């Protein structure tokens, strides 16, 4: 057997795990590991400019590729800088392995230089974590970390390794384990057939059925099966923010996103449904509105790999615990065997009603000559990229407009921080997306608030030539905060504007070695965007000035049911 140092074991274990790229930042406690990285081929290291971005980039990589993302950071501030990125991945169930250096074993607990109890700090935001105590345990620990991160409901796993364990002076026999044995961690491999049968019977008896699918369908690689199920049944389907791309955005049976800023038709259909098939969702508060008023007439079937997601927020009639792909496969098989079908006239009447709702609102918004609306920016982006781009997003109004107006064709095309709502996610996530899919067109839809939270990554993009197209929907204010202040605080814009302090983003982009394009007039938008996307190998920063007073609609009314919405500034349901 080979003799390797702890640092070499880490690198080799990653290689044996099939890792090709890691995102990180060096520092004292990980210098041995960086030295081992320097002396090998096969793993590329992307040097970010802030460890938060390393975590988001690894996250973006994982979301696009379906493989786990890997982060390497040093002890203390390096480790704590990853915290927001880890929490972001945790909330959206993204598989990450975060390796942090720790001070040497005999210094732990002494408040040593750059010492932080990162296992303690991250405990509530990881799926699991390890502190390695012996060098010999490094390969098996890394194996366990990847196994836990990627199986069941995925999530981030942190591995903290004291510096002395990675010393080049001490070598040990290396063997990467082929199997993981964890008696306390069992993953459900399939759903209960009896429950699936009950669900099929209930679905066949439905008069106003609705399919509500989420991130679980994307993570579980089940979009094709979902689409097949939707077509087979003839039911309407809505996606959560995390589930967009689960069914093609242009599909006739897709009624758009649901929830706080969901479409009128999706929210109305949810409220009036009599049977709800919920797949890989968690009945988040941004979807349900007040849970006691949620879908008052619906029997609910809930499929999820995580038993703790079931009946957490809303009581469920037929729970099915299992991986979405296995459950949907069996559901389709059972559907094939059953001769029962829905009452055709009831389903037709239901569709007639839904089409009427769709015709009534359908994401309408007002335009005015000479004023550029943020919605138009996304519509133009959709047109210019033929709906093919991978779109990463930051958090705020621009995120909601992107979710509403970009019709995602496939899973893993829409990359956003849904659960945690992390501003600063978009640009580093776009870097990770380009690592996962180097030939893809990647657009980062952002705002002048969010982009400044990780703008230093423009430098990383130059070093590694990540030709991200930054679509800065510039409304000169923290738009979503401002919208809430308009609607709930009588327009008192407390700390949501910048008082002429915004940087010249064009000069800034140029200073970082990129191209900047400024747009202020609606008539210039399309040509400018075409120009930006024609510069295939360059990062282009499009600074697009839009109407600062625009709001995102529909917007659910707090504590109401799903059908209680503002449809524009003066009209409510």
């Amino acid at each position, binding site marked *: 057997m080979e003799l390797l140092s702890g640092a070499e074991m880490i690198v080799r274990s990653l290689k044996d795990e099939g890792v090709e790229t890691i995102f990180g930042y060096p520092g004292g406690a990980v210098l041995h590991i960086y030295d081992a990285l320097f002396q090998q081929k096969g793993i590329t290291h992307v040097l970010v400019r802030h460890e938060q971005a390393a975590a988001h980039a690894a996250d973006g990589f994982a979301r696009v590729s379906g493989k786990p993302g890997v982060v390497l950071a040093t002890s203390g501030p390096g480790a704590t800088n990853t915290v927001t990125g880890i929490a972001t991945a945790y909330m959206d169930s993204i598989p990450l392995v975060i390796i942090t250096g720790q001070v040497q074993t005999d210094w732990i607990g002494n408040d040593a230089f750059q010492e932080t109890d990162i296992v303690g700090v991250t*405990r509530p935001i990881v*799926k699991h974590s390890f*502190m390695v105590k012996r060098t010999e345990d490094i390969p098996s620990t890394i194996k366990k970390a990847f196994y836990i991160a990627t199986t069941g409901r995925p999530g981030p796993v942190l591995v903290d390794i004291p510096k002395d364990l990675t010393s080049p002076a001490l070598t040990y026999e290396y063997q990467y384990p082929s199997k993981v044995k964890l008696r*306390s961690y069992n993953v459900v491999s399939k759903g209960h057939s009896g429950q699936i049968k009950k669900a099929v019977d209930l679905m066949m008896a439905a008069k106003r059925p609705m399919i509500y699918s989420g991130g679980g369908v994307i993570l579980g690689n089940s979009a094709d099966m979902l689409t097949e199920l939707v077509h087979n049944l003839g039911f309407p389907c809505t996606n959560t923010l995390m589930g967009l791309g689960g069914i093609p955005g242009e599909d006739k049976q897709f009624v758009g996103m649901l929830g706080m800023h969901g479409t009128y038709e999706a929210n109305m259909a949810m409220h009036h449904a009599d049977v709800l098939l919920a797949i890989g969702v968690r009945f988040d508060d941004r979807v349900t509105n007040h849970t006691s008023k949620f879908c008052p007439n619906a029997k609910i079937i809930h499929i999820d790999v995580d038993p*703790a997601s079931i009946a957490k927020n809303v009581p469920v009639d037929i729970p099915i615990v299992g991986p979405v792909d296995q459950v949907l496969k069996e559901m389709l098989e059972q559907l094939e065997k059953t001769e029962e079908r829905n009452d055709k006239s009831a389903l037709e009447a239901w569709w007639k009603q839904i089409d009427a709702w769709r015709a009534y609102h359908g994401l309408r918004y007002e335009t005015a000559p000479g004023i550029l609306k943020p919605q138009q920016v996304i519509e133009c982006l959709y047109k210019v990229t033929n709906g093919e781009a991978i779109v990463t997003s930051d958090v705020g109004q621009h995120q909601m407009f992107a979710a509403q107006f970009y019709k995602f064709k496939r899973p893993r095309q829409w990359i956003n921080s849904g659960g945690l709502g992390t501003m600063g996610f978009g640009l580093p996530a776009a870097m990770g997306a380009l690592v996962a899919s180097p030939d893809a067109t990647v657009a980062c839809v952002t705002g002048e608030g969010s982009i400044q939270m990780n703008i230093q990554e423009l430098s990383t993009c130059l070093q590694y030539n990540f030709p991200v197209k930054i679509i800065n929907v510039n409304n000169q204010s923290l738009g979503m905060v401002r919208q809430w202040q308009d609607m709930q605080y009588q327009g008192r814009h407390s700390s949501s504007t910048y008082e002429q302090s915004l940087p010249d983003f064009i000069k800034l982009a140029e200073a970082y070695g990129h191209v900047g394009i400024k747009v202020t007039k609606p008539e210039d938008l399309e040509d400018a965007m075409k120009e930006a996307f024609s510069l295939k190998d360059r990062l282009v920063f499009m600074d697009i000035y839009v109407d600062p007073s625009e709001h995102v609609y529909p917007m659910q009314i707090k504590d109401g049911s799903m059908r209680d919405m503002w449809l524009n500034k003066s009209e409510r349901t």
Partner: protein
Amino acid sequence: MRRIISILMENEPGALSRVVGLFSQRGYNIESLTVAPTNDNTLSRLTLTTTGNDQVIEQITKQLNKLVEVVKLVDLSEGAHIERELMLIKLKATGAQRAEIKRTADIFRGQIVDVTSSVYTVQLAGTSDKLDAFIESVGEASILEVVRTGVSGIARGDKVLAL
């Protein structure tokens, strides 16, 4: 409603903090907690008492089961079970009180395990209610110090919580 949840978990550093952390993160109560290794020294047995309606208890058990170090758990209060808590209580024991405390301890089947000219230390085991009753009987005025272990429990009959 009060519940007794008993957990078998890996006897590893950090496992306990994950269990305790879960309760504070998710806003659940812990009323008492006791933990020690079992006859299999790779496993610890942790018993805790908590309160909540059925929905909350269901979530607590599901969330606990998700922790990687939790091997098995049981809600003992769902079936017939035996619960015990141990208390050491130090009491002022002078004059007429001295005999009274001895009598009360006898009634509760406690034992006086340490004696000075002015102090008795009583050891008492039983359900939490019984310990509460003893404290009430001797009266606040004579109590110098109370130490309770928290509840431990085991199911009645053939049911076992083991691997």
